[in-house]
């Protein structure tokens, strides 16, 4: 029976490998997918090209020196003055206030989540941070203007403060940035190997000691990355400032007064009906370029730090 089955099988036709055909469909699909992926490159190129083009035109009539070091920003007045320093002062004043809030609170939240919190607490704290991260910035602006300034700053703290002021915008912006600092720092701290902690605990160290002296330094590059990213977000944020910090370009670093930032000036200026090529139009692009460069540098620094902490432990 074996022999019969075997010879029957032997009489079966010899299979031939199908002819190879150029699979045009596969190549075309791969091409399409590549084009889609290139859209991100095109976007960056578009941003750089559009900003650069108008900025170059801008700097034909406005000197670079006047722009960078001038102290008066009145582009729409006669005579116009294009010193960007007041806007930079406003930007970094509010950014500084924001980071004074975001860094301690964000790091505290990160240390708490990473080192102290038990699962049920984690389950409530993490969603709160995610909620905070999901609130649209215009809502933060509304809150800063209509509640925080009148009720907290004026009534409870008794500050002599304008309706529009940098302090409220800065503080609320700080809360907005807490989730950014907290989540990246927490990632970095969680990546620290448990063995490092256990070694210290085994020697009798307290949790405080372990968190601050062992985990914190070990996660430092990630923590720095989170702070740099936070600063980048603060610099790039528009609506909180536009709503709550008023529209005055001033060199004074007094947080009780209104201040324009780079972003809020663009927002206030760009009303959609600006003639192409006008002074207002070019100003928007020059400011946009300045903003883009500042945040680009910070993002690159932050990425470098993230890579450093990933390399060490992964």
């Amino acid at each position, binding site marked *: 029976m074996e022999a019969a089955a075997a010879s029957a099988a032997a009489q079966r036709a010899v299979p*031939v490998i199908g002819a190879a055909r150029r699979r045009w469909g596969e190549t075309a699909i791969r091409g399409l997918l590549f084009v889609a992926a290139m859209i991100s490159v095109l976007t960056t190129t578009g941003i750089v090209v559009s900003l650069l083009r108008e900025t170059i035109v801008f700097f034909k009539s406005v000197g670079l020196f006047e722009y960078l070091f001038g102290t008066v920003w009145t582009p729409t007045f006669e005579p116009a003055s294009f010193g960007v320093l007041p806007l930079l002062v406003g930007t970094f004043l509010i950014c500084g206030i924001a980071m004074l809030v975001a860094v301690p609170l964000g790091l505290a939240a990160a240390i708490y989540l990473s080192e102290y919190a038990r699962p049920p607490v984690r389950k409530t704290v993490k969603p709160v941070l995610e909620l905070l991260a999901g609130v649209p910035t215009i809502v933060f602006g509304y809150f800063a203007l209509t509640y925080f300034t009148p009720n907290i700053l004026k009534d409870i703290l008794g500050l002599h403060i304008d309706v529009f002021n940098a302090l409220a915008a800065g503080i609320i912006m700080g809360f907005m940035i807490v989730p950014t600092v907290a989540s990246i720092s927490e990632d970095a701290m969680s990546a620290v190997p448990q063995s490092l902690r256990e070694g210290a605990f085994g020697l009798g160290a307290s949790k405080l000691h372990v968190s601050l002296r062992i985990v914190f330094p070990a996660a430092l590059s990630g923590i720095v990355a989170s702070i740099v990213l936070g600063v980048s977000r603060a610099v790039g944020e528009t609506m909180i400032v536009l709503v709550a910090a008023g529209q005055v370009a001033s060199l004074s670093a007094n947080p009780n007064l209104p201040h324009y930032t780079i972003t809020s000036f663009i927002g206030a200026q760009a009303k959609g009906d600006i003639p192409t090529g006008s002074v207002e139009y070019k100003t928007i692009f020059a400011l946009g370029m300045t903003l883009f460069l500042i945040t680009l540098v910070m993002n690159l620094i932050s990425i470098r730090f993230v890579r450093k902490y990933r390399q060490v432990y992964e």
Partner: protein
Amino acid sequence: MAEQVTEPRQDSKAEPEAPLRRPIAARRHMGDAVPERAEYVFELDGVTASYHGKAAVRDISLRIARNDITALIGPSGCGKSTLIRCLNRMNDLIPGASVEGKVLYHGQDLYADGVDAVEVRKLIGMVFQKPNPFPKSIYDNIAFGPRVLGMKDDLEDRVEQALRHAALWDEVKDRLKTNAFTMSGGQQQRLCIARCLAVNPDAILMDEPCSALDPISTGKIEDLMLELKKEYSIVIVTHNMQQAGRVSDRTAFLMVELDAQEKHRTGRLVEFDETEKIFTNPTDQRTEEYVTGKVG
């Protein structure tokens, strides 16, 4: 025609009275020592498979007969999986992998310039070590192959036939639409075999198909293999020597050697012969040491 060995094999001990200690000479065509067969599915000639230039197996030459079950055995790292994956060009998927030498499939060079790996895999199926059913229903798992290969006629029949062939039909015929992950490990592996059969392959490669399964499932699959070889040619990689002894007609024994030129481990073919001979009376001392358990 050589006898088909189907009874379970005992672990054989080499007779001390008739030691066979031939010098270990590298032989070009191991297949030559084996009695001729009517037809060969695969003919390997000097096959060397490398990853990023480092050879995982070197200079393998053997001939795999049609409707045989051919086993590849050997210790870990001897390149059995690499070798079997060369037979259906699955190694192409690994970046840095390259193959030298000739792999003939029914006389056709698998690695010739004009050959499409996709077409090759339509004829040579593969079952993997860990059962990998698709996250779909049992029916859709089996139907996937015929659907993508354009065999859309009588789909229900094909599915039923494949499941019957794999001895799975009776167990699942009432729940074809349930998710494949609800099956046990042994059933999932038989599903993978059925999936393979549904596209009418000519040869089936099995890379340690039972190593993740319990003994009862293993037994069922071994019985299945013996049934399947009537229609298909089967090559199986196995860690389990008893299994090789139970099911295979011919066995190839590979071993790891320190590659003299490049100072890394490479697999080489030590002996390839009728299974009975490999296990009772091997030619090479290393084979004997391995099959008797002296060397792992």
